[in-house]
C-alpha cells in the first residue's frame, strides 16, 4: 500500500513519533490529553448512535431515506474536531459526524431525510454549509468561499468534503485547479470509503486519489481514516498549511462505508462479503476504545456513561423527529427569491384559494 499516516494501529497502539510519514504530524496532536481522546470517543459513539437512529427511523417510515456514515466516524470526527470556529466546512450528504462537531442539531439533518426541509440550519452560524447532493458541486463553492476568505482578510480556513466517486466529476477537478492557481486557503478532504454506490474506487482512478493533487501542483497526504487521532493530526496540519497562505491541500482519508450506500441500496448485489468483515475488524471506535482501555482511561463506568449519553441523545432526537410537523402547504412558495416574483405570487394566491380549506 502507498504511504498512509497512522497514529493508532488497528489494535490500538500509539505509533511512536520516530520516522516514517507520521513524524511530521505527531506534533499536531502532541497536546491531546486522555480527556480529549475520551471526548473523541464520545463524539464517535454518539454520532454512530444517531446514525443508527436514522436507519431505524427510515425503516419505520419516518424518514424517506437515510445515508449512513457507519465506518466513517473517525474520518468525520477527527477532521471535524480539527476545525476552528472561524473555519467553514462544505459537506456532501453523509457528513453527519462533521455536522455534529459543528454544533448542528441532528434534528435538522433528519428533517432533510424526512422531507420537511431542504436545509434547516444556518450555514453562517455553524460554519457548515448545506448538504450538497449533486456530487462534487460543493467543492467549487468551497473554493470560492476560500478565495473570499483570502480577499477579506478572514482568519478561517475552509474544508470541503467529497467522496472517492466525486473525484471523477469535472467540478472537483476544476476546483483543484482554481484553488491551486488562486492559492485558496482550502483543505480538500476526500473520504475514500472505497465505494461510490456499487462502483469500487478503482473505477474512478487507477492511482490512489491523494496523488491527484500532484497533477495540480499542491501537496496531499493519505491518512488512515479509521484512526481518529491521525485524522485529527493530518487535518490540523492541512488547515495550518491552508491558513499559512500556501494554498490548498488534499487529504485522502482511507475508510470504508460499512452500511449500504443509503437505505435504498442493496450492497449484496455488488460487494464481496469478506471485504465487509475485514473492515469491520478495523472499526474506528473499537480502535480508540482499545487504546483507552489499554491506557486504563476507559473504565466500564465511563463507557456506560458514554453509552447512556448516546442513548438519551438518540431517544430525544427520535422523539423530536416524530414530532416534526409537515410545513404548511403554501410554504412551498416561500423564499423562491428575495424580491417578490409576480408569477409565484399569483400561483400562491390561486393555490390558497383552491386549497385554502386544506392548509
Amino acid at each position: 500500500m502507498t504511504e498512509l499516516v497512522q497514529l493508532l494501529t488497528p489494535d490500538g497502539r500509539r505509533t511512536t513519533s520516530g520516522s516514517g510519514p507520521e513524524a511530521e504530524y505527531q506534533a499536531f496532536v502532541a497536546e491531546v490529553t486522555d480527556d480529549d481522546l475520551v471526548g473523541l470517543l464520545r463524539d464517535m459513539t454518539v454520532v454512530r448512535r444517531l446514525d443508527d437512529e436514522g436507519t431505524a427511523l427510515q425503516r419505520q417510515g419516518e424518514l424517506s431515506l437515510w445515508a449512513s456514515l457507519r465506518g466513517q466516524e473517525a474520518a468525520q470526527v477527527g477532521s471535524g474536531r480539527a476545525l476552528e470556529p472561524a473555519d467553514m466546512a462544505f459537506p456532501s450528504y453523509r457528513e453527519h459526524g462533521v455536522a455534529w462537531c459543528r454544533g448542528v442539531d441532528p434534528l435538522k439533518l433528519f428533517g432533510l431525510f424526512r422531507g420537511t426541509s431542504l436545509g434547516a440550519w444556518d450555514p453562517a452560524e455553524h460554519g457548515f454549509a448545506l448538504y450538497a447532493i449533486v456530487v462534487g458541486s460543493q467543492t467549487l463553492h468551497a473554493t470560492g468561499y476560500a478565495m473570499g476568505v483570502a480577499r477579506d482578510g478572514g482568519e478561517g480556513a475552509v474544508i470541503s468534503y467529497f467522496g472517492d466517486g466525486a473525484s471523477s466529476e469535472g467540478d472537483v477537478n476544476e476546483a483543484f485547479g482554481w484553488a491551486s492557481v488562486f492559492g485558496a486557503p482550502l483543505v480538500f478532504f476526500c473520504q475514500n470509503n472505497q465505494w461510490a454506490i456499487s462502483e469500487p474506487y478503482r473505477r474512478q482512478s487507477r492511482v490512489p486519489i491523494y496523488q491527484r493533487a500532484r497533477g495540480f501542483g499542491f501537496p496531499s497526504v493519505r491518512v488512515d481514516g479509521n484512526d481518529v487521532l491521525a485524522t485529527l493530526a493530518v487535518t490540523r496540519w492541512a488547515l495550518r498549511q491552508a491558513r499559512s497562505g500556501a494554498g490548498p491541500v488534499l487529504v485522502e482519508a482511507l475508510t470504508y462505508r460499512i452500511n449500504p450506500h443509503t437505505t435504498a441500496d442493496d450492497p449484496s448485489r455488488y460487494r464481496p462479503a469478506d471485504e465487509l468483515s475485514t473492515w469491520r475488524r478495523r472499526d474506528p471506535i473499537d480502535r480508540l476504545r482499545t487504546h483507552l482501555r489499554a491506557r486504563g482511561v476507559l473504565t466500564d463506568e465511563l463507557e456506560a456513561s458514554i453509552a447512556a449519553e448516546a442513548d438519551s441523545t438518540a431517544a430525544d432526537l427520535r422523539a423530536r423527529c416524530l414530532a416534526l410537523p409537515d410545513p404548511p402547504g403554501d410554504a412551498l412558495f416561500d423564499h423562491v427569491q428575495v424580491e417578490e416574483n409576480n408569477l409565484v405570487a399569483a400561483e400562491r394566491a390561486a393555490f390558497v384559494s383552491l386549497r385554502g380549506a386544506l392548509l
Partner: protein
Amino acid sequence: MAPTASASVRRTLTLAKALNTGLLEAMKADPKTVIMGEDVGKLGGVFRITDGLQELFGEERVIDTPLAESAIVGTAIGLAMRGFRPVCEIQFDGFVYPAFDQIVSQLAKLHYRSGGRIRLPVTIRIPYGGGIGAVEHHSESPEAYFCHTAGLRVVTCSSPADAHLMIQQAVASDDPVIFLEPKRRYWEKGEVDTTPLADLPADLRTDLGTSRVVRSGQDATLVAYGPMVRTCLDAADVATEEDGRSLEVIDLRSLSPLDLDPVVESTRRTGRLVAVHEAPSNVSLSSEIAARVTEQAFYHLESPVLRVTGFDTPYPPARLEDHYLPDVDRILDAVDRTFGY
C-alpha cells in the same frame, strides 16, 4: 430478476421490467448497442432497469462508468462516431445538468454541423419527475430544456407497453433521443406485447413521434405525458362520475417534435383544452401546446387553453410535493374554469 429471452407474447409487466426487457431486445438486435452509466452493471441501476444485462452481455457492453455525467454523454458521442449505439443512463433527473453542454452543444448539433455525415444514435435514459418522496434533485422534470434544443428527440412513456416499445424505437433511432422515464410509474403494471421491434409491422417500428388518444371524450380535452397521463385518466374518471363530463385524454409520447394534430383535432371538437405536466409552467411544454393549439384551433376554442403544472418554485421538500404536483383536484378545477369562460 434476470432478463428473459424474447418471445412474441403478451405478458403483464411493471413499467420498469418492460424497460428492462426492451433494453434486452435492443442489445440483442444490434451488437453495437452498449449501455453505460453509473451503477448500471452489477447493481443493474438504482432502479434495476438494466438488471441482469451485464451478466448477459459482459462488461464491454454494459459499462459501469466513473461518476461524471459530462463524460457519460461526451464519450457516448465518441463511441457513436466509432459506430456504436450507446444507451446512457443518467441516474436521476437532477444529475443531467453537468452533461448539459455535451447534450445541447455537442450531441444535438453534430449531425447538423457535419452536413449529415455524422449520425449519433445515442439514447439518454433519464428517470424523471416527482411523487416518490425523494430528497432534493431526485424529482426534477427537465424536459423543457431538451425540447427547446433543436436536434434532439425527446420522448417519454406512460405505460409498460409503451415503455417496452419506445425504448427499442429510441435505441433503434439514428437520432439522439432523450428518453424520459416516469419514475413514479416504474412499479405500475400493464400488459406488454413482447414482440421484438424487428418483428413488428413497419408503422409500429417507427411511430416514436406520435401522440395517442388514450381515452375518448366529448366535453373537454386533457393533454399530458409520462407520469401525468395516469393522473389525467383518474381525473377523467372522476369527471364522469361526479360531474357527468366526458373528458378526452391524449398522451403526447413524443415531446419533441410534438405531434399536435390529434390534440388540435380533439380541441376543435371539445373547444376546451387543459395541458398538464409536473414541470413548472414558465416557458414549458404547456406554454408551447397552448400557443400552437390556439393558433390552429382559434375559432373553435370556448376558453383559452389552461395549464396545470408544477409551480414556478424549486421542487419543494418531499412532505410538500403532494401540494406541488398536479393532481385530480387541480386538473378538474381547471376543467371547471374552461367551462366558466
